[in-house]
Each structure stands twice: as C-alpha cells, then as structure tokens.
C-alpha cells in the first residue's frame, strides 16, 4: 500500500517543479509582513525574520543581519549548568570596551590606563591581570595590572598619533572568548531539558576546537560560514532550514519540497548562488531568457560581441519565439519520425 502511494506521488517526467515551487512560495509570500513584532526576551534570541530574512537568504547575502549560532554540548556538560557555563565563558566574546569604564591616555609618559568596570569584569569571570596578560600577548605591549585593579600599558613612544592609534585599537581588543561569537548564553532546551549555548554571533570555525561541544550538532544561521567550514551540503541544509523556519514563523505553511528545491538550485554548482541577475537567472544558458529578465541591453550586446548561440532549450525563449515549450506535454517527442518511416518504406 505504502509503495503505491509512493509511486503515485512521484513527480513525472517534464513536471515544471520550479514554476510550481515559485508559485507555492510566492503566493503565500505576498501575505508576509515587512516588519515583524518581537517579544521581550533575551537579547540573543532576536533574529531577523519575515520578508527581510527571506530576501537576505535568496539574495545570498554574505553576512546575515543577525548572525546566530547554537552550540550543543557533549555528555556531562549538557546535564550540568556549571560545566555548560564554563564552556559558554570560553565562547562568550569579551572586548575591552565591554569591561572598561574609560581609557585614559597619558601623552607625557606614553602610558595608557584602562579603567576597568569591576562588576562587568566579575560577570565574565576575569581578573585585571588576566586582561593585562591577554593584551600583552596579543598586541606585544607591556601591559600590567595596577594595584587599584586597573590595567596600564606602556607604549614606549611619545608620538601623540601613535598613542591615540594604539588606544583606539585597544578599545576593540579581544580579551576572552571567540572573535565574532557575540554574547553566549547557556539555555535549557524546553523539550529535552538539556543545556546548550546560544550566541548572538557566529564563528563556528573557531568554536569547533573547543572541548566539550558536540561538533556534529553545531549550528549557525550564517549560510556562507556553514559553506566555508562544513561544506556545500551543510550550507544547503542550513539554507532550506532557515527558509522553512522563517515561513513557519510567519504562520505560512509551505511544503518542504518546494523549499528544498530552491536550496538545491542555489547550491547545485558547488557554491552558493543567489536568485536573481547576479546568480541563477543571470547564469541561464539562453540569451533571450536572460535578456527577458533584467539588463536586456547588456545581455544582447554581449551576445552580439561574443557570437553567442541560443539553443532554445528553456521555457522563456520558446514562448518568445512562439514554439512549444519543452515542459509538460511538450517533452514528449515522436521516437520514430515521419520522414524515417517514408525512407524505410522506400527501401
């Protein structure tokens, strides 16, 4: 029985799945609202949603507006909040700006003093000497903790411009955590009760080597990062998942197959392509199909300059000239042609 259904629901030869996917996504897509309302919650959970997110994904934007990653943990840590929190602290991105009140530059002796915010420092489990050690290691500067609990840096220069440029660099210096990871917070799963880490940024390349995290389950909504670190198949999965979840979030139910087709099309050439004139449509084989979409003149001029040939294999170009389209009933051709029969009968 199951087999019967399976066969009957299979797509047939010549079925225009692309157009059906486009219509199935496009029609309910018109109901999507541009601005979405957010609910109060942790800062890390606010991500772009609705139409802007869909546009971002289909345009294959290099950096998402709101990058976000979920880091799942291995055996012990996922049941123990304290252990999970330790890992989260390794990830949580802390820069000098986040833990300092002000940066004082002393141009007469060439020293820079970072006045630390003790509360902020405590919150991220750091000591002034750790901060100093980190700065001196990363920037090859003489940094030391002062008795008052601040950090002082000797620049060994008295050139005003150099001191200022160092202090500006220091403001954004990474003190602990993974660059680009953003705020990492331990969260408890509502379904399994296990702990995992959510972070308002993503850099899974640097997160993966950290001990105690589940390398197989790490997730980011950054499609390009997924492609870079884990490959095109992972990127395709993320793309499909993000699209589907964005539609679901808007209360729009679209069959997964349509979304998967879009994700497949965007990744089928081994790299991520957008849907539009810079991506899929712009790389169509047919000159006429490209010219009919956008930048008509550009495509016609290039076709003329390079002597391109249109093989009339697509839909658009065949409608343009008035031929039967090679889809649906148009894929069926006679195996034996009339002339061949005549030729044979003559022999």
């Amino acid at each position, binding site marked *: 029985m199951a087999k019967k259904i399976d066969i009957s629901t299979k797509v047939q030869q010549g079925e225009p799945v692309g157009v*059906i996917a486009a219509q199935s996504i496009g029609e309910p897509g018109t109901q999507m609202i541009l601005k979405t309302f957010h609910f109060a919650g942790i800062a890390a959970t606010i991500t772009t949603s609705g139409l802007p997110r869909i546009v971002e994904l289909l345009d294959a934007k290099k950096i998402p507006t709101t990058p976000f990653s979920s880091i799942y943990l291995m055996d012990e840590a996922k049941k123990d909040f304290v252990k999970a929190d330790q890992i989260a602290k390794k990830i949580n991105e802390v820069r000098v700006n986040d833990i300092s009140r002000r940066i004082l530059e002393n141009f007469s002796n060439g020293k820079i003093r970072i006045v630390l915010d003790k509360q902020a420092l405590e919150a991220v489990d750091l000591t002034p000497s750790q901060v100093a050690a980190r700065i001196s290691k990363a920037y090859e500067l003489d940094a030391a903790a002062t008795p008052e609990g601040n950090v002082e840096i000797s620049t060994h220069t008295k050139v005003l411009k150099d001191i200022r440029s160092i202090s500006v660099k220091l403001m954004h210096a990474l003190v602990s955590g993974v660059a680009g990871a953003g705020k990492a917070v331990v969260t408890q799963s509502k379904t399994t009760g296990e702990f995992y880490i959510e972070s308002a940024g993503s850099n899974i390349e640097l997160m993966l080597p950290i001990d105690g995290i589940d390398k197989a389950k790490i997730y980011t909504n950054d499609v390009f990062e997924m492609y870079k670190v884990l490959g095109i198949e992972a990127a395709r999965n993320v793309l499909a998942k993000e699209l589907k979840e964005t539609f679901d979030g808007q209360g729009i139910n679209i069959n997964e197959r349509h979304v998967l087709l879009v994700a497949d099309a965007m990744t089928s050439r081994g790299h991520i392509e957008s849907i539009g004139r810079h991506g899929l449509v712009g790389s169509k084989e047919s000159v006429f199909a490209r010219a009919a979409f956008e930048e008509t003149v550009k495509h*016609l001029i290039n076709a003329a300059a390079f002597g391109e040939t249109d093989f009339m294999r697509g839909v658009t170009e065949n409608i343009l*000239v*008035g031929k039967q*389209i090679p889809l*649906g*009933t148009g894929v069926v051709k006679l195996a034996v042609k009339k002339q061949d029969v005549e030729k044979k009968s003559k022999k």
Partner: protein
Amino acid sequence: MAKKISEKCYIHLNGRAIGHVADPLAFVSEVRSARRKGAISGEVNIAYMSRLNVIHINTDRGRVRKPYIIVEDGKSKLTKELLDKLQKKEIEFNYLIRAGALEFLDAEEEENALVAISESDITPKTTHLEVDPTMIFGLTINTAPYPESNNLARHLMFASYIKQAQGLYATNFNLRFDSRAYILFYPQAPLITTTAYETLKFSNHASGQNFVIALSTQYGYNKQDAVVVSKGAVDRGLGRSMFYKTYSDEERRYPGGQKDVFKMPPATTDGYLGEHAYAKLSDDGIIEPELDVEEGDVLVGKVAPPRFLEENLGAGGLEEKTRDDSIVVKPGEKGVVDRVIFTESPGATKIVKVRVRGIRVPEVGDKFGSRHGQKGVISQVVPNEDMPFTESGIVPDLLLNPHGIPGRMTFGHLLETLSAKAASLKGSKIDGTAFAQTGKERMDDYTKILEAYGFDKHGEEQLYDGVTGRPFKAKIFTGIVYYNRLYHMVSNKMQVRSRGSVQILTHQPTEGKARQGGLRFGEMERDVLVAYGASLLLKERMLDQSDKWPVLICNDCGSFGYRDYAKKLNVCPLCGGSNLTEVEISYAFKLLLDEIRSLHIRPRIGLNE
C-alpha cells in the same frame, strides 16, 4: 546659552516669528478671553504647543474651523436662557458667538481643547462642548440612520457608495448635456430619516428607494455579496433608471484654411462606413431626436480634410480628398436619441451635441448599496411567483444573505430593517439620528408599533418557499431598508471579443473596451499554464491567438527571405540562395530581430530538421 533660548516662548503669527513672551499660558488665555469678549476678531485662533514651547497665532484664510460651545468652570456657556431665546428666534446664531457662548476653533487650537461630546461628559478640565453629539460624524455619515450602531469602517464605505448613487442629481437634467447622467425613475424619501438628512432637504432629490427585504438565503444564489431580486418588483419599476450619454462634435478649423463640415459624407470619402451606417441621418448629416440607435449607427456625419497634406499636392484640378470623421455609437451601446442641439464655440465653429438615452432596468450584475456600507450585486432576478412570501402575501423585493451581517458588524442595518417596517405600518417617518435615543428606547418604540399592527415584535415572519409552497423551518427577519442603486451597471461595462483589431506595432490584440480589446493573458497567467505543463494550450494563447507571423528563413545563412511570386521562388536577399523554409514565429520576436538588425547586429536563425 542654548537653554536660555528655549526658555523663551516664541510667537508665530501666520507662520512668522514676531516676538516672545515669558508666560505663554497667561498670554494665550488673555488672547482667548479678548476674542470671546469681542475685543479682537473671532477669526483669530491661538494655540500653544507645549512640547515645542511655541505659540502659533493664525489669522489667515483657508483654515477649516468648527464651532464649539465654550465651557468654563465645568459649565456650558450656552445656557438655558440663551437656548430658549434662540428657540423663540429672539436671537440668532451669530449672537451666540458675540455673547461668548460659542467659538470657532481651527485645527491647531483644537489641540489645546478638551472637548466633551455631551453635557454629561463635562469634567472640571473640559474646555469645550460639541454643539451636538452627532458632530463626531461628518455630514455625509449623519444622513445615514443609526450610525452609532455601525462599525466605523462601514461609514467610510457608505460615504463612498452614496457618491455613486443614482438619483435626481439635478432637477434641470432635461436641459443639461452632461457627458454621462443617471436618473432614477421613482426616487423615494427614506422611511428612516435623520436631522442632517432633513436639514439638507435630501428628500427633495432623493437617491434611493425603500426595498422590502428578507434576511434569507435563496438556494445559495445570494452568497457573499450577491442579492436576489424579485422580478415582480423590477417590473413594477424598482431601481429602474435612465442613462443619458452626450456625444459632441465640432467643425474644427485647420491651418491652411481647411475645415470640417457636418454633412452626409459622400461615398467617396476615405473611411466611408457604408450606406447603412448613415441611414438614420437627415439631409444635414445629423440625426433626428427619438430615433432608435445602436452600435455602428452614425449620429453626426462629419467630413474632415486629410490628415497629411502631401496627398493633395500636385493634383491640381482633381477633387479634394476628404476623410470621414463621423460620430458613431460605440460598440455595445444602444438607446434613443433624446435631444440634439447646435451651438457655437468661442472660436465661432459649429458644435453639435447629441444626447442618447437608454433605460437601465436592474439586471444580473447591477450594484446596489444600503446606507450601512453594505453593497450587493444582483445574482438572480427571480419571477415573482418563485420568491418567498409571508403569511400576509408580502413578497420581498430583495433577499439579503444573513451571513453578511455579523462579520461586518452593521447592526444599524438590522435596526433600520425593523424600524422602517414599523414606520411603514405607522404611516410616518421615524427618526434615526445618531444618539437621539438609546438602543433600548428605540427597540421599545419599534416593538410596540409592530405589535400594535399585529406583527411579530422582532420583525420575524413565517416565510413560504415560492417554488415548493412549503413553509421555511425558521422564522425569517423581514423588513424595509433604503437602498441606493449605484452607477456600476453591467450594460455599460460588458464586453466580448473573439476576433478583432490588433495593434499596428506588435500585431497583438488591442486592449480596453473602447478598442474592442481582449483581456491580457499576462506573465502570471502564462506561468500558470507552464506550471500545468499545458504546452500546446500555451502556444495557442501566446502565438496562434495573438501575433502569429509566417516568415521564410534561409537554411544556408539564417536570415529572413521572401517569396518571389513572379519567378515562383523563395529568395534569400543576403546569400542569394533559394533554399528557404517557412516557419511561424511571433511577430514580437520578428520585431526584436528587426530592431537588433537596425543596430548593425546580425542575428541568424538555425533550423533543425
């Protein structure tokens, strides 16, 4: 420094800064009291913008202003004595302004006012009182009954429907030559009126009729916004109207001394429409009144000089060529010539206006609207004997679907149904002005009247199916509602095309009713056929029924060729060969290739098989 400037309250007179004051509130109240005393003009409005710490004084023209009753210390200045005097006509409205009981506020000063809607709403902070609670609605909405019982969005819809209502738009309509005019045959004053309606004397030129309605479904024929109408009622003149259309033409003069001439065009004119088209014209080439005309008939025969001059040059003694420029009745239109007038333009050229009239009997597709933003389109005209009827033999004029009421929250519609029924029994109009009575008072009044005349107090009646004669299982809410016939009528919009004219440039069918056009089979419609895989149907739409064009294509060099009928040969003008194949392509594609060729780019077509 910066702080000191903002401490000063600047005064803008008609948008121009003229000075500043230290205490803005005291200044504003001083100006206002001076205005109320009559020391300064009542047309001065002053407003203090507390957020910007600025005073705006406006005395210029073009401001919309509205009268309010002044309230001081929680008491209305329009006292009982003043009201009594006003009623006895001892004083007039302007006296109240001079007496400081009323004042006009503009949009800016309204921002400073706290207005109570009725006297009971006055609090110590109140500064003004509405002249009447109905003032919260506009004039148009106040002509509708029970607006306080309806959803706000429905008021706006009523306001737009009433503009489209056919009625008696002008009593001299018979003398007017409006390009389009609609006159209702039997306009009625509504059974439920309002103060605003009576003040406007709207019933002197009413735009609707009182329809007997039943909130009942009719075999599903009135689903959504469809309504079922009784043919009996339509035959008796319900909603019947006259449509007037004026065709006008002028004997234009052209540079070079040529001019148009109104006359019976001779058969030699360019574009002569054939003898039968001019058959109804009199000798002067203009139609006579009271003649039946239909599409293709000429109303005014006009002969114009040729569009381009060269045709006449060099042909000295020959007769001057002329072009037929007659007015023809547009496709799909018909009627009777009502009136013909001759007049003169400022440039002393002759003008003819022909007014054609036609009766518009309500038919399937015509639009109606009640005064509660409830529109309806006739879906069926049911013979009188097949309509449901009440025990007393009343047949409703219109059957409205009850599902249209709850979602739209037009309770006023139900209230009107009930009260108009009471009014018709009582034999006098009932007042439906907003806030005039409470809902309970109204219901008590209406139910009393209905019971007194032996009807169900809630307006429900036992109805019998006109087709089967059986009683309906449920009692049905029946009453009277005032309906407007709106000017969207199928007979003025309907259009069909099977074959017809095409555009010159693209060879594709024309668009629009005036050009006998087709309905565009656009990109999205095309996608639907693609998605279905109906490749041959798609080809039929896009090519065979559109801009199919046979071309000869050279098998050797791929360029367009032609047929030399003298030599009975196909010729390729580029390579000189005669090995060509005829193919059908879309004219739009041929045009594209032509344009590309004109850019000195040579497209070549290769053919398979």
